[in-house]
């Protein structure tokens, strides 16, 4: 394993002596820095040269941690000194890197205590770049290699390093930014600590006001969010249950098609439903006009506000609760119901007294999920909210609006986080103990009992119209892009698609003329980079959680799942607060978008990985270990190949989620890196519904084809494999069997 040590040490050397230490304006991979004064230009110099050319003497001590490990290379692994050298250099290097990064910023010393002594204008630095990144990574690996040599994790370098790596990145990209929100909530507008200003802001009338109950002013934002989330969660859970019951307990003929509904939320950008609702029920919507003509009703703005947002959210999240509840309803063991029926309970009583109580934890789970989703939802309130303000959008306006009050935004973020985290905790604590749904893997015989006629009819009458409405809405989205101007001129046009996606052949070659191309390609490429990273981080974490046991494992699990409960807007604002200034100055880059996607979607990768890995017999890993393979090659050669379906699912999911996500993204996009969703939101704000809808349908189609293509590819592989297999069998069965049994 010394090879890997040499490798990591080399990485550190490259980071310190060769790559530009600080962040480059145009990114490392533009490579223009190579021909633009490297290595002596002060923007491009590696750390070692910065020490002399720009007098950044404080970078010099970092070299110590690159030299010390050389000594370790001469020692034997079992030597105590070997571990000591590595632990020392790794932890010193990391600590010094962090401290100097925070201590010296763009305008010199950051700690006012020292500022008086070193008021030197030269004394400053910008955000860390790839050089620093490699150096930090190298230090981390030296530290974990050293710890492993001390016997941590039974001396397994791969496992120790993986744990170290995950802890490090989750700390930097989840805990650190969120802590910045906390800090900034406790600062007044001058940046000094002040709990008074926090209390002022927190108990503001605007947040908690109850005026709407007595007078005709709007209620506090917190109440709005809470009401909305509770209503959405209740209704979606009910609808989801109706759908789940139809699919699992009735002979409904279009069950398969109904199941397809569950795919919808994944491929739908969050505000699309809102848009379609505007086209249908808005002031100049089709339905509105129809009724206006028929009854002479005045077209009203009822859609803009609580009813509209609720309507859109229920449409958006019902499929999610449907998906969750299918599993729950199927999980109720048929033998329980059969037992109840043999005890002379009729179907209604069996459902009421046996099935429903058994499903209760699952229902609670669906409820809490919808609650979190609704709280965190940004797109629908953005499009349909009107004067109905909720936390997630208010945070956005506090940052980008005229007020630009970061402290206020931070307070709102904390509040929102408190709501979603409580739901998250409730879900984990409550469900951890009370899951009756059997997951033993033992097949339970018997069929689920049918619903009694009353219940069946009510399920049908609730769910089917809703399914129809969903269909209409998606139809609307597909066709809306071909209509000239909603409510005014309903003639067919290709204009919107041309505006967005026109191509032109000129003498210069292909010109991407449409206005949408830019954000379209950015979106695809950033999502394509983020997807494999998400899958990798997620599956590695799942491996550690399922296959390794270590102290604080539940804390580790909690930390990695936490970002699931952090609303996108909170992530957005926390990233702005944390990564706008050195040492990590990432706002405005594409990197911050990628990082954001990786950590937002990681919990899903982890869950998928855990589910898949728990199905793999542990003795497979153990067999590989006893055959002399180390844990890294076991992971690579045994576990990963067997997890292929989970990997593909994680890849697809994170790719698609990155395309559709908007809440965090809208804070982090920049002129150079605009994403499709934030571009569309801009269109909607300008009232350009036609192009917006056209763009949305293109996105939906792209995602659908990606999903289909991947499924096809995977299916193809399976087919080929089974062909090869049947050939192999034929070949062998012709060979004379030399079994011992034959003797």
């Amino acid at each position, binding site marked *: 394993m010394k090879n890997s040590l040499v490798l990591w040490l080399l990485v550190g050397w490259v980071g310190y002596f060769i790559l530009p230490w600080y962040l480059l304006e145009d990114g490392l991979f533009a490579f223009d820095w190579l021909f633009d004064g490297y290595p002596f230009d002060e923007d491009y110099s590696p750390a070692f040269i910065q020490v002399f050319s720009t007098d950044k003497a404080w970078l010099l001590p970092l070299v110590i941690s690159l030299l010390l490990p050389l000594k370790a290379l001469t020692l034997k692994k079992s030597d105590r000194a070997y571990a000591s050298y590595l632990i020392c250099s790794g932890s010193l290097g990391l600590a010094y890197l962090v401290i100097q990064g925070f201590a010296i910023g763009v305008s010199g010393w950051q700690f006012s205590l020292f500022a008086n002594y070193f008021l030197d204008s030269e004394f400053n630095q910008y955000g860390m770049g790839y050089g620093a990144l490699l150096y930090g990574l190298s230090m981390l690996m030296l530290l974990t290699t050293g710890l492993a040599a001390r*016997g941590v994790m*039974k*001396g*397994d370098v791969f496992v120790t390093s993986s744990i170290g790596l995950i802890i490090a990145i989750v700390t930097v990209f989840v805990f650190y930014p969120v802590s910045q929100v906390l800090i900034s909530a406790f600062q007044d507008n001058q940046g000094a600590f002040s709990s008074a200003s926090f209390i002022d802001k927190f108990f503001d009338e605007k947040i908690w006001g109850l005026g709407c109950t007595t007078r005709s002013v709007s209620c506090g934002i917190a109440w709005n969010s809470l009401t909305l989330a509770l209503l959405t969660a209740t209704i979606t859970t009910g609808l989801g249950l109706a759908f789940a019951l139809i699919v699992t307990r009735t002979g409904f003929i279009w069950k398969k098609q109904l199941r397809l509904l569950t795919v919808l939320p994944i491929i739908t950008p969050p505000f699309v439903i809102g848009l379609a609702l505007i086209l249908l029920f808005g002031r100049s919507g089709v339905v509105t006009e129809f009724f206006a003509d028929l009854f002479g009703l005045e077209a009203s703005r009822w859609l803009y506000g609580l009813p509209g947002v609720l309507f859109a959210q229920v449409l958006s999240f019902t499929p999610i609760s449907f998906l969750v509840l299918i599993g729950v309803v199927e999980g109720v063991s048929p033998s329980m119901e059969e037992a109840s029926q043999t005890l002379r309970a009729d179907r209604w009583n069996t459902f009421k007294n046996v099935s429903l109580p058994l499903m209760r934890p699952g229902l609670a789970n669906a409820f809490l999920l919808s609650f979190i989703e609704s709280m965190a939802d940004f797109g629908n309130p953005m499009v349909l909210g009107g004067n109905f303000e909720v936390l997630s959008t208010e945070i956005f306006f506090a940052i980008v609006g005229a007020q630009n009050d970061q402290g206020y935004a931070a307070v709102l973020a904390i509040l929102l986080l408190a709501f979603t985290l409580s739901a998250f905790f409730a879900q984990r604590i409550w469900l951890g103990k009370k899951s009756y749904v059997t997951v033993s893997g033992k097949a339970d015989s018997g069929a689920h009992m049918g619903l009694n006629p009353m219940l069946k009819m009510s399920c049908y009458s609730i769910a089917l119209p809703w399914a129809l409405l969903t269909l209409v809405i998606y139809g609307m989205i597909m066709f809306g892009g071909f209509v000239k101007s909603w409510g005014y001129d309903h003639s067919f046009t290709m204009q919107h698609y041309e505006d967005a996606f026109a191509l032109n052949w000129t003498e210069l070659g292909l010109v991407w003329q449409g206005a949408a191309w830019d954000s379209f390609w950015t979106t695809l490429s950033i999502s394509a980079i983020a997807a494999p990273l998400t899958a990798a981080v997620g599956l590695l974490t799942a491996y550690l959680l399922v296959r390794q046991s270590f102290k604080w494992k539940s804390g580790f699990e909690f930390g990695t799942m936490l970002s699931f409960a952090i609303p996108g807007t909170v992530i957005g604002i926390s990233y702005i607060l944390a990564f706008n200034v050195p040492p990590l100055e990432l706002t405005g880059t594409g990197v911050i978008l990628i990082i954001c996607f990786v950590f937002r979607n990681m919990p899903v990768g982890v869950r998928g990985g855990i589910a898949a890995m728990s199905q793999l*017999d542990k*003795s*497979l890993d*153990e*067999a*590989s*270990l*006893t*055959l*002399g*393979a*180390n*844990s890294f*090659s076991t992971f690579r*050669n*045994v576990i990963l*190949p*067997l997890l292929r379906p989970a990997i593909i699912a994680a890849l697809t999911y994170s790719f698609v989620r990155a395309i559709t996500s908007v809440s965090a993204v809208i804070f982090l996009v920049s002129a150079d890196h605009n994403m499709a969703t934030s571009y569309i939101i801009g269109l909607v704000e300008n009232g350009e519904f036609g192009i917006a809808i056209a763009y949305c349908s293109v996105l939906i189609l792209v995602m659908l084809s990606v999903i289909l293509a991947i499924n096809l590819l995977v299916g193809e592989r399976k087919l080929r494999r089974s062909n090869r*297999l049947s050939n*192999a*069998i034929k*070949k*062998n069965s012709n*060979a*004379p069997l*030399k*079994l*011992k*049994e034959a003797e």
Partner: protein
Amino acid sequence: MKSNHDKGSVVFDHVIKNYGDVTAINDVSFRVEPGNLVTLLGPSGCGKTTTLRMIAGLEHASAGRILISGKDVTQLPATDRDVSMVFQSYALFPHMSVVQNVAYGLVASGVNKQEAHAKSEDALALVGLHGYGERLPSELSGGQQQRVAVARALVLEPEVLLLDEPLSNLDAKLRRQVREEIRELQQKLGLTAVYVTHDQEEAMAVSDRIIVMNKSIIAQEGSPKTLYEEPNSSFIADFIGDANLVDVEILDRANDRVNVDIAGLQKYLPAREFSLGPAKLAIRPDAIQLTASAGNQVGITGNIRHATYLGNQMQYDVECELGSLFVVDYQFKQGLIAGSDVQINFADRGLVLVKAN
């Protein structure tokens, strides 16, 4: 300390293994001689698998030392130990062909692919699976899969071969045949093997020595013959080959023999470490002779509660002064019927004095 005659030996030195509050192994010491096949035998949950996994390095001892070939490996992870293991579930990698499975360990330890495959083919031939290399494990029968697992373990020429209930997924007929094969291979290659089973017949059939475990400790260790003929406790007597345990009185001791009173009948038995006074006697079911009562015969009077006809043997439950006795008769002609009175006598073999516990 490492010497040639130690190669392949396994030593447990006061090993303890705790899982939280549960003590799975409690201060266990033993030594497996090179070239021997030693069986770990015992009821479910007694710690056999745990012991085996500690030899493999898949679990680490909470206290004590483990030595393989004279070298202390207590802290060494599985990857670095020169042992290989045949798993109860076989643990064949489902995405690799048979030959890739067998070559896996060789490739992992740096042997080049060609050589690894050639060696693997040899190993497959050794277990009688020549020509099956290209198949996937899922295309083999249970018995064939089991052999692949053995070939995969053997091809590495390990110092110690570990087998965890390797036959439990096979049907009864095949089980007997495969266990003979494993034993044959082990002796041919002169391998040290540690074998876990809870089937005492299997253990008797394949082992040089048996270590019987009970409740996290070693109950007795010895050759199959010793365990059967000189059990040191009623647990062993009952576990190895069934026994009726009855209270007896030792009346007299002379030379190596004692005179034992069994409910009025007197028998001379090997004395071993026993002295005068009350004792426990283990009576094998086939050491009890029953005759239908007719007049004044010697013997203990009893009554047959149940009689079961099994073709080659009759089984009886007999109620008598000693309690309820389980009797097996291989030499029956007619068989006795339930409800009839019988006289009970004992054969000369199949009676052992044991410590009460």
